């Protein structure tokens, strides 16, 4: 089967202005969302307590609310359904520092008489730990970007690195916007998804860039836009196929992975779509706008080749004892 058979290059760069408008609108919308609605930090980052309770039958949420209402420990607790009608999550902003009095035990005590249930999970994250996790998370993100930037700059050229960072920021911003819009709890797994997205989106971009570099080195064309069009078209099959296989897998994870993996799968799902789009429509135009010049690159390559040749000549002379 062949979906994408290369016959002639599509004019991707001709549509780059249109794509730029879409991207800018999406990014601005994302930042507007982040500024107004913000992120819904879960216990991992905000600190607090989560108790997950599963009933034999449908959870009597109203009855549970009544039972917890009078209890000082559960003041301002929120009770929400979790994945299925028989499972609920109780969220508290507070935590206990005592090792012996456990919120799980207190919950079991408080919910007595509401039916057959089981306390399946108790997560308590103190505020200090939450802060630390958040700092570490941001640190990890920045370090990953820095590491990638250095690698790309070293392997390609600095403009490639800048362009890939643009694409990364683009993808992460929009993914964060989607996370904000959906209102899912931002926990460590969402952070993991964002970091995976970094790697994934970059994967896509780099494979396109690799082809562009190859095109610059081998193609007779000198107009960058044309080379980019040709390279992007040639990698289109791969870009779509890999995105498709990854998309399948993450979609099954999203559909069947259970409630706990939902935030992770959702973030990735958005990320894969945006990441695929950005490797075609964002990274390459940025490269163009930063004034990457094919001629200069050719000259640089020629000079490098000359230096190499000179070096080799010297070495040969030295080895044959002429010098």
């Amino acid at each position, binding site marked *: 089967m062949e979906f994408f058979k290369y016959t002639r290059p599509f004019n991707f760069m001709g549509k780059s202005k249109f794509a730029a408008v879409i991207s800018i609108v999406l990014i601005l919308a994302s930042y507007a969302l982040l500024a107004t609605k913000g992120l819904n930090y879960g216990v991992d980052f905000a600190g607090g307590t989560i108790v997950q309770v599963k009933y034999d039958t449908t959870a009597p949420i109203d009855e549970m609310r009544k039972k917890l209402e009078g209890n000082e420990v559960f003041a301002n607790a929120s009770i929400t359904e979790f994945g299925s009608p028989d499972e609920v999550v109780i969220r508290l902003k507070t935590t*206990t520092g*005592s090792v012996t009095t*456990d919120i799980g035990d207190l919950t079991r005590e408080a919910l007595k008489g509401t039916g057959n249930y089981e306390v399946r999970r108790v997560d308590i994250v103190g505020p200090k730990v939450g802060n630390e996790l958040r700092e570490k998370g941001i640190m990890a993100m920045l*370090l*990953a970007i820095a590491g990638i930037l250095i690698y790309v700059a070293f392997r390609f050229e600095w403009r490639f690195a800048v362009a890939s960072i643009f694409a990364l920021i683009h993808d992460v911003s929009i993914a964060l916007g989607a996370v904000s819009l959906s209102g899912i709890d931002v926990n460590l797994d969402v952070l993991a998804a964002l970091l995976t997205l970094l790697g994934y989106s970059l994967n896509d971009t780099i494979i396109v860039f690799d*082809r562009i570099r190859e095109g610059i080195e081998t193609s007779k064309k000198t107009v960058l836009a044309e080379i980019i069009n040709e390279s992007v078209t040639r990698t289109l099959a*791969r870009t779509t196929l890999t995105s498709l*296989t990854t998309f399948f897998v993450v979609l099954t994870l999203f559909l069947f992975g259970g409630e706990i993996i939902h935030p992770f799968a959702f973030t990735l799902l958005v990320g894969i779509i945006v990441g695929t789009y950005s490797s075609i429509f964002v990274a390459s135009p940025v490269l163009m706008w930063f004034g990457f010049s094919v001629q200069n690159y050719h000259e640089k390559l020629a000079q490098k080749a000359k230096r190499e040749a000179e070096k080799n000549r010297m070495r040969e002379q030295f080895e044959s004892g002429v010098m």
Partner: protein
Amino acid sequence: MKLNYRIVIFALAITFGVVFSIPSLLQTEGGKKITLGLDLQGGLHMLLGVKTEEATKSRIKSITASIKHFSERNDILIDGLTFDEGTIKFEVLDSDEIAKVQEYLKEIDGAVVSLNNQIISVSLSPEEIEKTKKLAIDQAIETIRNRLDQFGLSEPVVAKQGEEKILVELAGIKTQEEEQRARELISRAAKLELMAVDEDRAARVYNMSASDAAAYGDVILEDAKNPEVKYLVREIPILDGGMLTNANVGFDQNNRPVINFKLNAEGAEIFGDFTGKSVGKRLAIVLDGKVYSAPNINERIGGGSGQISGNYTVLEAKDLAIALRSGALLAPIYLMEKRSVGPSLGADSIKASLIALIGGFVLVIIFMVIYYRAAGVIANIALIANLFLLLAVMSLFGATLTLPGMAGIVLTVGMAVDANVIISERIRELIREGKSMHKAIEDGYANAMSAILDANITTLIASVVLYAYGTGAIKGFAITMSIGILASMLTAILGTHGIYQMLESKMMKSKNYKFWFGIKGQ
């Protein structure tokens, strides 16, 4: 068919993968296995903090007790021996004895001694305070580990995290009762103190406030079983649990469980001295600030053994003995983070992620075969080999498989075919340009290589950062991702290339591009 080095290495890798993943897959008795994370098998994860300032306080208290004992033993008259959070103060009545006292104080590590008109103040140097705090953390780790080892769980994890946090992970906790018991055992200070009851004023204890008591150098303590009952005891203990060498469960004449303890030589000496001159008075046995019993001293007790009685069950007495035996916590601990997962939730998580894994896997496999035909089959062989390798490496390292780790595997499946997609697309391109099958395959691999390497290395960089900065579950994700990427280099690049080389003569003869790479021939 022709053997080549690539196919040999690939075959070895598959054999390695299958052999070493069998123990994990079949859960056999022997062999190294992947351990399931707490989120998958259920268990308790806690991050504990240590109130280190309490350690300094109790160090000061303990020094005070030894000064008292020293002066009594050497008949040095001192007066006004008091201590607060940072300093001990006392007056040496006979100025001739000051040098002797100073000599003794010099032997106390990190003590800063100053003298002012026969009043001696002792405090701890800043370095010593730091040292005491650090010791409190290290000792807490050691103590908790000892206690949990005796609790009967398999492989409890107790480790220092960061500068001053303690990570405790208990897998296989099945019930809330077990969890409760474990938590109590961990957090129990188990600080044993033997204190003298202030017999002169004991009768007035119910009319006294805490500050009244403090004015006499006493404290008011509650009875462990009945908080209504109060005792007035001397603030400076006779000795503390640091001198304890052993504690065991025994039974008294009424066959009720008691705890027998033994003291070291120094403790035995102090205990003997004290009981010798306090016949007729009461001795309060205080554990974690509560009085367990206050028996009358009938005679001098030598040999350094004693007994704590109280109304415990055998299990309580056993846990208490474990706590005493494994040493007191120099400073109380508090909870910073706790995650407990019930076994049923873990089982559900495994089920859900297995469905996702198998579902995604089957989809990818079918897709690859339809799209690339034989090349798809070959890529799928590489993908399966990749999974086995991943499991094998994780088993050998004894890595922990967490829920995010499962997600990592699922993702590896999606991305592992990437290399083969890139290669197959390159080969198709070359075939369309009219290159021979042999040339197309060799050049296809060569052309694809830099893109695959660059892409994989960047993902690897991100995974390594994740591993370095992530905690628990995220680390698990990073591990599976990294191993998956490395394994895919071996299987998807080297392995498939080897298979093509092996089948080359067949491919050359067939000339059927459609069958091999799913494209129409020219």
